[in-house]
């Protein structure tokens, strides 16, 4: 009996293949976007974990200089001789063939077991090859590919290292980085012999640093991934609307079958279980398909994500995906959960349905006025929550909670709002057809409201994120003009060349400004310190957000420092606050400047101060001021004179276009997800319209009978969808502006550390509106076309007497 009943239930889908496709497609799409985001995040997080786990930094304490600078390896030997179990690490970045590679030198003999990602003794490397010149660079497969052809030690490939990192013997690394006899830090073995001499006696300059449980990278990029997750969830929610409509329709259309089966003796419990099993099978199938599809999406998006992360945070994420069981499990789980949530209402109604309930589908999803009012009240309540959160809340989570409240609130408010708008519209109706059009549209609202809410979410997210990105870009472009005031930027290959280059440039240009920098820590964060000389380039152009009156004089006199905005925000430092730089050097903040696109904190001091306090500062870069007309010529001459590679002399325009390219790639993912979400929303409308079109016949047939052609009716149906989309778009614009304001003023500040002004781009909205109307039109086209071509016999069935 169960088997037969199941076959009867399933036969519905054979007769309604389109419905089945919608259900499976909706579920698969929802799962796909969600899984894509999960796969991308998983890949990135695994990469951060690998980066964090490099030489066990996530698990081992280490000994460092308080300012993070390198120190003599004799201190290492002294500590070992004093009984300490420590292992030396040298770290640094090296440009190899245009690629910046992080080089980590280890001593494989003393490396604690927790720090051994690379089996140096293992096949393919071998201790002897590793430690004796020329040594071996161990890298990820991807990095190995990037390094191909560079004049370097032989490369060995492992999967355990993050991209952009090369591990090698400490001796080899010291030569590569030109820091003979220097170490960056010492890893402490987890347990030390009781007999070791006190640390302060042997290495007074060093402090113990706790293992970085959460790496700088994962902290910095958290917001980015939260962002992606939010998008994935949005897409999933939108997709679930489709599933909900398809399941709802299938339930309504099978009421007669349910009644018959029960009348024939199938227990209600069995019926419900059968239906749940049927849906579970669909969920599993679509879940699997969705995750597979999600991997496709992730695979397509990952290069952009990787570029974004590199550009925004300097985080290296590989461009290839690993198949993670967790993603599959989570994807299928969310597909099943989504299906069950979508079906809960239907199953509940079935559970409570009297055996002899009328088999005629009643107007599906018809909401009473009271329900509408309740929905409006909930929406208003959520709006209040949104306002409260932006006023009172702080932090990224509050920011996203506010965003969620805003979106959900506006989605809930949409149907009552549209209902009111349509009521208003019907007042303007002159003709009876117009009157009917408005009234009928209003009546369709309950059935379409879920899809329209999905559309609203997609449109607001689009308008909001679009406004945010455009505002950001506008600000960024203006900022680049200020920040990149010099005509040429040159980088020498070594110290001697830098000096010679400067001597060569001085008589040939208006000014040669050093761009020297060093790494240090401020308030526990890694920051770059730049030294600048006093010059009009800075006085006239530097993009200051806040400053004391005589800021440049004070910088020139080495009396104060400048901070970039993100450092000021993260550390809570303001004008006049002292900043501890290193070796007891502490200077007040004289200015805060905007520094978009930079993941790191930055401190600017006078060049004298930099040279004095950071002897190992990088002194290879200069900015050159010259008449722009002569810049290209000078660049050529310079390249020739020093046989410099192309990338060592860059003109202003190249830097700008490079920066903008990075910027655009950064938001390419967001844009892609946006479009996909909108596509899913369009599909939701399509599914809903298709669902409704079957139930529309009894409502449309009398109008047809009273003298409207089928084509006329179809045209009205099309117009109705477009009108609803247009009204939804109108609502979406203020929601989108609210969204972008929150992104710029709350989320960005938390995520990136900078606050941007909001600019409005009405033309973008027009474009979006056209897209939305097009989407709605396309979605409505199929049902409308079907209506236009429906055989009159089918319409006549509406009038057929039931007797």
């Amino acid at each position: 009996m169960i088997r037969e009943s199941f076959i009867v239930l399933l036969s519905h889908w054979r007769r309604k293949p389109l419905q089945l496709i919608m259900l499976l497609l909706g579920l698969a799409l929802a799962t796909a976007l969600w899984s894509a985001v999960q796969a991308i995040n998983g890949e990135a997080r695994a990469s951060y974990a690998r980066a964090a786990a490099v030489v066990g930094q996530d698990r081992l304490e280490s000994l460092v200089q308080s300012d993070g600078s390198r120190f003599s390896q004799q201190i290492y030997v002294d500590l070992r001789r004093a009984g300490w179990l420590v292992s030396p690490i040298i770290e640094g970045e090296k440009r190899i063939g245009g690629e910046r590679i992080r080089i980590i030198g280890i001593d494989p003999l003393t490396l604690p077991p927790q720090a051994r990602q690379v089996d140096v003794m293992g096949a393919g490397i071998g201790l002897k090859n590793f430690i004796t010149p020329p040594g071996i660079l161990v890298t990820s497969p991807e990095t190995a590919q990037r390094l191909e052809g560079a004049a370097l030690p032989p490369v060995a490939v492992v999967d355990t290292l993050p991209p952009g990192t090369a591990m090698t013997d400490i001796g080899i690394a010291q030569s590569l980085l030109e820091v003979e006899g220097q170490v960056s830090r010492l890893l402490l073995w987890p347990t030390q012999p009781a007999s070791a001499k006190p640390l302060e006696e042997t290495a007074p300059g060093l402090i113990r640093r706790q293992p970085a449980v959460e790496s700088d990278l994962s902290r910095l990029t958290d917001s980015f991934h939260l962002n992606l997750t939010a998008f994935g969830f949005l897409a999933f929610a939108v997709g679930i609307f489709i599933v909900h409509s398809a399941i709802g329709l299938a339930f309504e259309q099978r009421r007669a079958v349910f009644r018959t089966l029960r009348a024939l003796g199938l227990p209600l419990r069995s019926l419900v279980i059968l239906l749940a099993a049927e849906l579970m099978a669909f969920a599993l199938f679509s879940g699997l398909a969705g995750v597979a599809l999600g991997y496709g999406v992730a695979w397509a998006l990952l290069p952009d994500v990787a570029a974004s992360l590199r550009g925004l945070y300097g985080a290296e994420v590989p461009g290839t995906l690993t198949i993670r069981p967790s993603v599959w499990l989570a994807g299928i789980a969310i597909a099943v959960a989504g299906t069950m949530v979508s079906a809960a209402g239907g199953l509940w109604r079935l559970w409570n349905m009297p055996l002899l309930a009328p088999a005629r589908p009643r107007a599906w999803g018809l909401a009473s006025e009271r329900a509408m009012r309740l929905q409006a009240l909930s929406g208003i309540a959520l709006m209040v929550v949104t306002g409260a959160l932006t006023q009172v809340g702080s932090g990224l989570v509050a920011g996203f909670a506010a965003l969620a409240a805003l979106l959900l609130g506006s989605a809930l408010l949409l149907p009552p709002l549209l209902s009111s708008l349509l009521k208003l519209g019907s007042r303007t109706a002159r003709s009876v057809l117009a009157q009917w059009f408005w009234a009928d549209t209003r009546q369709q609202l309950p059935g379409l409201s879920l899809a329209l809410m999905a559309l609203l979410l997609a449109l607001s997210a689009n308008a909001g994120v679009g406004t945010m990105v455009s505002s950001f870009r506008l600000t960024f472009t203006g900022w680049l003009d200020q920040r990149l005031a010099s005509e040429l930027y040159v980088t020498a290959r070594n110290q001697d060349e830098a000096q010679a280059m400067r001597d060569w440039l001085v008589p040939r240009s208006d000014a040669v400004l050093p761009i020297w920098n060093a790494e240090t820590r401020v308030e526990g964060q890694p920051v770059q310190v730049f030294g600048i000389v006093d010059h009009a380039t800075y006085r006239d152009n530097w993009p200051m957000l806040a400053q004391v009156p005589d800021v440049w004089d004070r910088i020139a006199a080495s009396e104060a420092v400048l901070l970039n905005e993100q450092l000021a925000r993260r550390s809570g430092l303001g004008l006049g606050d002292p900043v501890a730089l290193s070796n007891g050097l502490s200077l007040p903040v004289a200015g805060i400047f905007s520094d978009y696109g930079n993941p790191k904190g930055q401190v600017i001091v006078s060049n004298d101060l930099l040279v004095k306090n950071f002897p190992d500062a990088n002194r290879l870069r200069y900015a050159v001021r010259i008449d722009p007309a002569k810049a290209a010529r000078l660049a050529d001459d310079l390249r020739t004179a020093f046989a410099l590679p192309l990338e060592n002399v860059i003109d202003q325009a190249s830097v700008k276009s490079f920066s903008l390219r990075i910027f655009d790639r950064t938001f390419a993912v967001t844009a892609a997800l946006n479009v996909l979400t909108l596509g899913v929303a369009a599909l939701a409308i399509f599914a809903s319209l298709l669902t409704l079109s079957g139930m529309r016949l009894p409502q449309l047939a009398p109008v047809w009978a009273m003298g409207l052609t089928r084509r006329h009716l179809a045209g009205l149906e099309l117009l109705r969808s477009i009108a609803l989309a247009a009204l939804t778009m109108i609502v979406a614009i203020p929601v989108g502006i609210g969204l972008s304001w929150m992104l710029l003023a709350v989320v960005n500040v938390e995520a990136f550390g900078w606050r941007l002004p909001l600019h409005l781009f009405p033309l973008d909205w027009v474009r979006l509106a056209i897209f939305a109307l097009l989407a709605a039109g396309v979605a409505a086209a199929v049902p409308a076309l079907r209506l236009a071509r429906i055989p009159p016999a089918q319409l006549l069935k509406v009038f057929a007497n039931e007797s």
Partner: protein
Amino acid sequence: MKAEALLLFLALSTPALAQGFAGMGEDAEGFSVPQAGTELVFPRDHGAHPDFRIEWWYLTANLEAADGTDYGVQWTLFRSALAPSEGQGWQSPQLWMGHAALTSAEKHRSAERLSRGGIGQAGVVEQPFAATIDDWHMTSRAVASADSLSSIDLGASGQDFSFTLKLDAMGPLVLQGDRGYSVKSAEGQASYYYSQPFYEVAGTLKLLEGDVAVTGKAWFDHEWSSQPLGADQTGWDWFSFHFDSGEKLMGFRLRDSAGGFTSATWINADGRAEPQAPGALQVTPLEFAEVAGRSLPVRWQVKLPDKKLDVSTRALNPNSWMDTQVSYWEGPVRIEGTHAGRGYVEMTGYE
């Protein structure tokens, strides 16, 4: 003969770990090879020989606390060369490894240290003699006229123990084999090998339970080679005995697919060494025990008919397992039978 060092270093320096003991007989390409008839010169030969592949300074001590509790101490510094040369800084191809152990009847404690040569973390200085790795040391305090090893200070530390010992030799250095040329197989593999078996020891063991003052006897070996094992030799059993009579015995058996290769040196109380013919020493396991997941002899019968020696050994702690990167059994024993005394046994290659 502490040949497990060879294994360790070959394991470190080549991907040959899986080859096990068979890998030890490989060619000594570029490295010096011991030659019979070469005279050892001191203090020069107390120092390191970087042109040989492997070398070790190995000290075992049978100690006793005032209350009669037995202890054993092991202190070893191994050298292994990736290339037959010395280099500056990290480029040096010389690798160093320390093993230390402190054994009592209840517990066997061990520690291990590794270091690169060339940076000052580990090494051996000839004059005044000092062998060090990290804070572990074996330092001469002999007067200039005496052999630099006649008086030494010894120290090492691990997680749960450390020791500082003063050692004074009561007899001369003993050259093993043919004036220090020690043959290891019938095919002629050999090493340079001498010992100082006459140390009287006094010092302190630092345990978690507290300090223990101890006295006793110690045995020192210095051996270097490039190719000490035959290709089919799978492991060895090594014995160093201090008899109550003042006589000493060093003997070993290298196990192979056939009957094995044994060698021994009888050392008279006055320091006069009597190398025994290959095969004169007979060793037989008497009792096996499960140690670290494998079956090992914990009692041996050792016979040297020419000296009317027929003794059996009893391990102070059958679980004297060196849980180091390459592991082996090394521990103090009591000797019973025709001669009574104490000593050390080492067993490697039991899988």
